[in-house]
């Protein structure tokens, strides 16, 4: 019961701008200004399969949500990933 309330609380405060910042933090060279909700993450020069693992780890740590390879294959933009995560918190 407590857990459910806790998750509910998390869900209500999950913010797209925080998410974009957390997403951008996983990149070493690309500056934050280049990230927005409509950014297609595959178009970022630095994007590779290893960055995707950092995103999975970030989402696990920050939101307690599990992302799969299929989730990435079905997504294009940062907002797509954000929507998946917010539907699962």
């Amino acid at each position, binding site marked *: 019961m407590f857990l459910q309330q806790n998750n509910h609380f998390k869900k209500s405060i999950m913010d797209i701008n925080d998410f974009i910042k957390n997403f951008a933090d996983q990149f070493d060279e690309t500056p934050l200004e280049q990230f927005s909700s409509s950014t297609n993450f595959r178009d970022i020069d630095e994007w*590779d*399969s*290893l960055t995707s*693992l950092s995103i999975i*780890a970030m989402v696990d740590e920050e939101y307690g949500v599990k992302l*799969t*390879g299929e989730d990435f294959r079905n997504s294009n933009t940062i907002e797509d990933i954000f929507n998946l995560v917010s539907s699962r918190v």
Partner: protein
Amino acid sequence: MACFTIPNVKLVGISACVPKKVISNLDHPYFSAEQMTPFVNSTGVNQRHIASEEQTTADLCYKAAEDLITKLGWEKSEIDLLILVTQTADYKLPVTSAILQDRLHLPTSCLAMDIPLGCSGYVYGVSTIASLINSGAARKGLLLVGETNSKVVSPFDKSTEPLFGDAGTASAFEYDVNAVPIPFSLGTDGSGYKAIIIPAGGARNKTDETSLEFEQVEDGIKRNQCSLVMDGMDVFSFGISRAPSAVRELMEYTNQDIEEIDYFVFHQANLFMNKKIVKKLKIPEEKVPYTLGKYGNTSSATIPLTIASELKDKLSSGRNQLLCCGFGVGLSWGTMVLNTENLIVTDITQI
């Protein structure tokens, strides 16, 4: 997850053998240093030992078994149980453990079986051998755990070939009423069976003339239907969530704290994943040995290989508690706590 405890069984020795041939990832026969640098930085795999054309899992395990039997001074006639954990057996049938029973000159009264599990295989193997010894089916058992992953990965697949290495190991167990009982936590989630798979060659997709045709799947990944396929993202997502919860579950079951465990030996998946798991569990770094740099990911063999490579001196005298956790292909996972006392560990041999 199933938690249970097996009494009366003691681990008395561990040995390991690797092929002589070494492949360096930054001097890779197929991929450039530029391609490989980020891979090496992330996975921690600098080099791997790779079997020659002629060498098989049985060859590596045979050598490890002979080394251990000699060091322990066991009479072969007393060994009445032989289990081989491998996903890269010498033949589709018969089981390779039968071939090894004969090659090692073990008695025909010896029970022999293969267990085709991977990353979780060492823990499952110990649970099986311990069950049989505790039941009275055997007094002295050898658990051989080895892989020649190089035989099943595509040489042109950047996502698998540079990660995996080959190794054979042997662990000796015997009946001992004074042994500290071994607690286990085992689990399975077959919904993730496609995360690590060799699609063709079994009954579902039989080998045919198209199975060996190489196909460019994406940049840096060319493989055929008989090559190992790994969905790195699925495996990673599984590992960083399941391994910590499996460790926590076993420690709750045994009512132990992290401080009471001397060493945490994790399946060597890749460094990035392993570090995340260790960080989540807040385990002090000095309690966590790694062999990814030297040997890469040898699937089922990583846990005994890491014990032989990194803990030989530390375990050779006194009592120690090791928590071992394997997780991966299946998807399958297993955790156990092994208590050792003056453990016999041989030097790793190369053939």
